[in-house]
Every structure is written in C-alpha cells, then in structure tokens.
C-alpha cells in the first residue's frame, strides 16, 4: 500500500497540472495582500462602518496579519474546491483518458487498493495545498502586516481575540479545512470513477458544490431544518467557528475559548461521514466497472 501511495504521489508530483493550484493560490493571496497593504484602511473603514457608532476601533491595529489571513481564507476557501477537483477528478478519469487505467488494472493490485491509494494521494495533495496557503496567507501576512489582537466580524457583532490566542485557532481552522477539502476530493474521486475524461467530473464537482453552497446559504425556513443540516457544504464553513469566542457577562472575551465547540465537532463528523460515503461508493462502483476505455 505504501509503495503504491509513493507511486501515486510521484505521478502527482510529475504532472504539470499539479502546480496550477499552487500558482493560483499564490496569485490570489498576493493580490489580496497588495490591495490591503496599500488600501487596507478603506477596507477596514467599510468593514467596521456598521459598528463604528457603538465601538471605537484603532484601524491600524485591526489591520494585522491575523485579520488579513482571515479575509484571505474567507475569500479563498470557496474557490479551493475547484483546485482540489482539478487533481482528484483526474485520478481515475484522467487515467482512463490517457489509457493508463487499463494498464493499472491489469497489475496485481486490487481495485479497492487503487481507489484508496488515489484518495490518500488526493488528501496529501490537499494537505500540501493548505500548508502552502497557510504559509502565504498567514506567515507572509504576519511578516508584512505584523501581529496584534484579532477582530472578526459576525453579522452585527464582533469577536475579539488577544494576539497570543490566535495562532492555535488557525492551526485548528486549517486542520478543519483539510477535512472539508478532503470531502470535496472524495466527491471528485467518486464522480471520476464514472467518466473517461477529467473535465466532466471537475465540472460536476464544482456544480454540486456551488448548488449546495447556494442552498446552504439561502434563508428559506423550509430548508433550514429539512435540507441544510444534511448538506456537506453547510458544514464546510464551520472552520470559522474557531474564531468565535465565548465572553463573560461583562462582555470580556474568555481566552482560549470556542463559542460552540460541539457544533464544530458535529460538522466535522458529518464531513467525515460524507467522505466515507463517497469513497465507499467510489470503491463499490469501480469494482464493478468494466474498463472499456
């Protein structure tokens, strides 16, 4: 199994397409960082406009590396599924398109092993992509903008964390994002099993994520309890929960607290359940598939 995984990673490492995602992340992060560096004040003014009557913020302190990373993640994590699908959807369908799938299946490796290894390779790719994103969005932002207490807006309120109470939250958030993106990778892999060309599963993955995200975000009472809790996209944004803190009755933030840890835990398990479902279905379908390509 380990040898097969090494082979799979070697193929991903050698494939030029792999680096598109890394370059795209770098470009988007750089664009946001440059914009905030030169016009961050206007952005913060706009962001805080609803609260400035009630609270007084020192904008130069609010705009720091931690907030910049939060802004980038908010923007970028919606688009990362596309980058994940580029690789995961290619895992089976791309091989079918190249004609190498039939050669792989004639080797003394079970089809279950093949799917598991391809999924594991996709997860490793997701981890590396998110580490890359963390380095660029968090570390580079910390170097450019410095660090300070972090303020996160949520509807008409805000959460404030002390500077030394933030880093661990990012580690948890990136960890959670890895699980969320791995679920997308599992969906792409499942769709990939049915196709002989990677374009179909890539488009299908993105379409599903977009449609379900819209459903998750829509404020329709009928869907709130009947549909939304069961959509995996509703749980993909739960990483934000790590930045929502508890406060005392006096309104003081409790250091090291998370407002609703059970909700994050529940979302985590739902994503893991979806991941198992998608990979399980991918294995079951691939085992029965006649390789005609």
């Amino acid at each position, binding site marked *: 199994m380990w*040898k*097969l995984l*090494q*082979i799979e990673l*070697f*193929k991903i490492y*050698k*494939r*030029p397409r792999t680096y598109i995602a890394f370059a795209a992340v770098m470009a988007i992060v750089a664009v946001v960082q440059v914009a905030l560096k030169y016009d961050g004040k206007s952005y913060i003014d706009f962001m805080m406009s609803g609260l400035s009557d009630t609270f007084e913020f020192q904008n130069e302190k609010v705009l720091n590396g931690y907030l910049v990373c939060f802004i980038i993640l908010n923007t970028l994590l919606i688009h990362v599924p596309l980058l994940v699908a580029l690789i995961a959807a290619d895992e089976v369908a791309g091989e079918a398109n*190249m*004609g*190498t799938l*039939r*050669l*792989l*299946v*004639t*080797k*003394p*490796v*079970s089809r279950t092993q093949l799917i598991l290894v391809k999924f594991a390779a996709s997860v490793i790719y997701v981890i590396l992509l998110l580490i890359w994103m963390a380095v660029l969005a968090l570390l580079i932002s910390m170097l450019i903008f410095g660090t300070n207490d972090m303020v996160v807006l949520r509807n008409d309120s805000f959460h404030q964390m002390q500077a030394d109470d933030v880093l661990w939250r990012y580690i948890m958030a990136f960890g959670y994002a890895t699980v969320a993106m791995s679920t997308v990778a599992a969906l792409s892999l499942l769709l990939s099993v049915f196709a002989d060309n990677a374009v179909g599963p890539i488009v299908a993955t993105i379409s599903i994520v977009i449609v379900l995200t819209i459903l998750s975000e829509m404020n329709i009472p009928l869907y709130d309890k009947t549909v939304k809790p069961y959509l995996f996209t509703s749980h993909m944004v739960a990483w934000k929960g790590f930045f929502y803190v508890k406060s005392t009755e006096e309104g003081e933030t409790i250091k090291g607290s998370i407002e609703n840890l059970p909700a994050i835990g529940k979302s985590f398990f739902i994503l893991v359940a979806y991941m198992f479902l998608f990979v399980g279905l991918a294995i079951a379908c691939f085992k*029965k598939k*006649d*390789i*005609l390509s």
Partner: protein
Amino acid sequence: MTAIVSVNHLSKHFRDLKAVDDLSFSVNEGDIYGFLGQNGAGKSTTIRMLLTLIEPTDGDIEIMGMNLKTHRKEILRNVGAVIEKPDLYKYLTAQENLSLFAKISGVKVPSHKIKEQLELVGLIDRADSKIKTFSQGMKQRLGIAVALIHDPKLIILDEPVNGLDPQGIADIRNLILQLSRSMGKTVIVSSHLLNEIEIIANRVLIIDRGKKIQEGTATELFDPVNTLVELIVADVASTWEKLQQTPWNNNLYAKEGDTILLRMHRNDIPSLFKTLSSIDVQVYSLSPRHSLEDYFLSITTQNRHVETFAN
C-alpha cells in the same frame, strides 16, 4: 503440452449485445497464439476478460492452473500486457514509466535491468526522453518493454501492430518471435491483420461475432486443396472463355477487374501455367491469394465474399 490458459464457455453480454458467446479455447505453454477476427468480432473483449478489465457474464478462465476470479493477484503477477494502444504516462520518461510499472507489479527492478529492457526494444538512446516525444512505433515498443519488465510467463498483446508503419510492424513481429523463441514466453497476440498472425503464430483461434469459428495450428487451418489462385491476364473475358473449354472450367471462381480467380489445389499451379501457355493466353501474373486471409474470409463472411466476387 501444458495448457497455460484455459477458457471455458466464456460469455460477455452488454445488454442485448453478445460480444462474446460461449467461447472456449486453450493456449499451451510456449505458444504464440494468434487471436484472429475482424473488428468487433470480440477479440478485445475476450482479452480484457483475461486481464480482469471486464467481468465475464458467464464462464471460467484458468491461467497457470489457477482460477482468475479467486487468484487474480497471483495470476497477474505473471502476466504482461499491451492492450490496443500502449498508453503510458506522457509526462514521464521511458525509464520512469518502466520503473513505475515494475513497482506496481510488485517487483524491484535494478536500473541495469531497466536499461536491458530498453535495449531489447531498441529504445536505450531514448531512456530519458518523455513519452510525449515518442512516435507511435516507439510507444508500442516501450509498451512491450513495460509488459516484460516484471518477467511474466504469459504476454498478451492486443492489436500490437495497429497504426504502425511497415518497419514498425516488422520490429514488433521480430520482437514477438524473439520473446517466444529466445525467452520461452507464451504469447497471445490478437490482430485483424491475417498475414501477421500467419507469420508469427503457431496456433490460431478465429472468432466472429463473439463465437469460435476455428482453432488449430496455422498449417491445419491452411487448406492447400482449396487455395484461391489469382490469374492476371491481358484479356480477362477471352481467357475466361478459353478456360471454360478446358478441365479448369470447374475451378473457375470469379472475375475481378483484370484478375481471374480459381479455386484449386496449390500444387496444381504449374499445370495451370502449362495449360495457359498452350491456349495462348498472355499471363502477367499467377499466384495463390494469401492463404489464411482466403480461409478467414471464406469462413467468416462467406456470403458477402461470394456476392462481391460474383458482381
């Protein structure tokens, strides 16, 4: 002779289409087994079932004395294959592809062995070139090297000369002969190119519409009594009439352009030549039509064949 492959009552149905229908055959150790059939006859489907790419609807496959369903991994460790186009990883070099497929086959192959394989298929100079720069013939040869890298006992080649130029075809043909004669491998080779099969195979299976039509040695299948002989002459109509006046009348088969076809014993060709000289016919050429091709057409598409010639 020990049977290395034994196929019993194999069938594959795609909804209403019977791609393979109750097919049974066996391949002996050391054979170059020719698998012959027109496009769509069921050759590739059968080969894909032998390689577990397709699940049979019915029937059993035994390879090296083991059931393919229950001993898939053990069997595939000893099988190498090229299925139609030898598609490999285009963004990897020849050496990287070989090394990768050796590892997937569960074999640790030292780099000198990889170089030996590349030498065998004449690609040693391109060891470090990416596959996307290879010609079709080079890919085909590398595909065979990939099939051989884990030293399998059985090699299955599905249409290995498809899309190759004459030199490429000759190279692959020589390689297959070398595999059998010098390396003692058993080779199953499918093709719709009859002359290729006739040249290299010692045993032949002919299938049509998923069914076995004939199985035997090339010599058994070649019927010298019923050879189709091509006679090219200056004046087809008058030669035809003249031959009708001779004992060759019963052998006249069809007219096709400037050619007259006769069905006859191959050994009688010199005697026909004498007759033609005696009746003053200007002969440009007199030769047997390709034997296996003739046989193949006569048994697979007899009706269409006769209609074409009759017209």
